[in-house]
């Protein structure tokens, strides 16, 4: 079961990974965007970690809400509303439950993905964070349906997110600033898909110890 404390470790680990990959994210963004993804996301996730220190984390929903509100309020750009909406929708789906079992966690992540689609109107193959998150959600659902535990399922989701991230390299960008480059966006890995893959990998690392019930 995943409780508020587990969600907090997941998102804190994500913040650590964003900080560690800050320059990589910015470098990917300077090739096809405006060179701010690493700095902006790091500002938001660091602020969220500070907010976790004082905010209520008695339930997964409360931690996810703190994360979402903090990102919307500090990141700016497109990443703020997109990641913010992801976590706020997850919070809405998790509700007041004190713990989430594996299918409930997967359902919350799926709700977050739906929120990203509603906010950004992205589809598969547009070269965005969706291209890493969507295969991860599918892999997570499939693995749980096949009876795997949450650790195994999140490992498979991580592999799917990484493959989805790598698959953005040959894509022609159709959303965000990268889309202005047209053909010149081809051959570059999408920074949003890269940070989204970090989020899934952090979940595998932080939540795999949580035995599914």
């Amino acid at each position, binding site marked *: 079961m995943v409780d508020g404390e587990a969600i907090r470790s997941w998102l804190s680990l994500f913040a650590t990974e964003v900080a560690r990959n800050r320059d990589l994210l910015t470098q990917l963004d300077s090739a096809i965007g405006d060179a701010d993804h690493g700095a902006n996301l790091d500002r938001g996730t660091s602020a969220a970690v500070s907010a976790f220190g004082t905010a209520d984390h008695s339930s997964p929903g409360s931690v996810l809400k703190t994360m979402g509100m903090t990102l919307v309020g500090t990141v*700016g750009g497109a*990443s703020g509303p997109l990641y913010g909406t992801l976590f706020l929708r997850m919070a809405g789906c998790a509700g007041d439950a004190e713990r989430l079992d594996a299918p409930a966690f997967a359902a919350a992540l799926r709700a977050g993905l739906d929120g990203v689609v509603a906010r950004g109107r992205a589809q598969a193959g547009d070269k965005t964070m969706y291209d890493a998150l969507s295969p991860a959600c599918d892999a997570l659902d499939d693995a749980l349906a096949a009876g795997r535990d949450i650790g195994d399922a999140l490992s498979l989701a991580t592999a799917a997110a990484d493959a989805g991230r790598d698959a953005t390299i040959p894509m022609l960008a*159709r*959303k965000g600033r990268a889309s202005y480059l047209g053909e010149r966006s081809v051959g570059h890995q999408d920074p949003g898909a890269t940070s989204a893959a970090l989020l899934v990998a952090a979940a595998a690392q932080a939540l795999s110890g949580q035995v599914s019930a």
Partner: protein
Amino acid sequence: MKKLINDPANVLSESLLGVAAAHPELRVDHEHKVIFRADAPRPGKVGLVSGGGSGHEPLHGGFVGHGMLDAAACGEVFTSPVPDQITAATNGVDGGAGVLHIVKNYTGDVMNFEMAAEMAGATGGAEVVAVVTDDDVAVQDSLYTVGRRGVGVTVLVEKIAGAAAEAGRSLSDVAAVARRVNAEGRSMGLALTSCTVPAAGKPTFDLPADQIEVGIGIHGEPGRTRVPLAPAAELARMLVDPILDDLDFAGDGVLAFVNGMGGTPLIELYLMYHEVDRLLAKAGVSVARSLVGNYITSLDMAGCSVTLLKLDDEMLRLWDAPVRTPALRWGL
């Protein structure tokens, strides 16, 4: 990186301290990083709010004042402001007649303004109408993309819609004028150099000394094509031809706007204006008004953009109406 800064992390907040000190006719909310007219909100007047990433100065903060914006929400450099900032700006200019959001068509700006408008709707705040500018002909518009970027025409929308609001027109009227300006305006830009975001510390893209980027936006994002540097007469053609191909500018007269990207001196901008003016004359386009200078910039990027706006009588009258802001002032 050689810049007049203390700490890359504090560039925006320290710059706003300067704005406040230099312009007592403005009020700066340092917590939310919003620049207001000191007399906002004005009862019965439609409030005009714009905003976006910083680094395009004087846009938007330099256009706050009589006859133009009531408030500008300032995001970090090249990063949209967040909904809280936009909400603070909206509430601060709500004089009971509604608030117009002028938003440049960038994914982040559109989403953050949308979230702020949703929050205003959910909390019973001001009536908000948004007008999105998308005048950059360098971007091919299609159903499957985010559409054209908002660039030079944004300055003209803020001036003309600002004059309409100052004249006491209703929210729907002011929004309609703003949309008409956007629909009748087109822009195209080029960069001679990249620009350096203070937090990044190095140029956003590498551009060899003998190459230029054509079809750039205002964020140091690379353009659509890279070509060898050419004389100004040819560069002017690279900017004017795509604009004239996109919209028929024959008729009553246009506003011709040659804008500097921040790192190009006025002497070159006027030289370019001459080339643009000649091309327009040759194409049978009559110029009724002009604007030359650095108005919507991209930090220290060298280069320029050309914007043409097809004026009708009403737009012309509103363009000529008095304006008093740090960056644009006449008639007062």
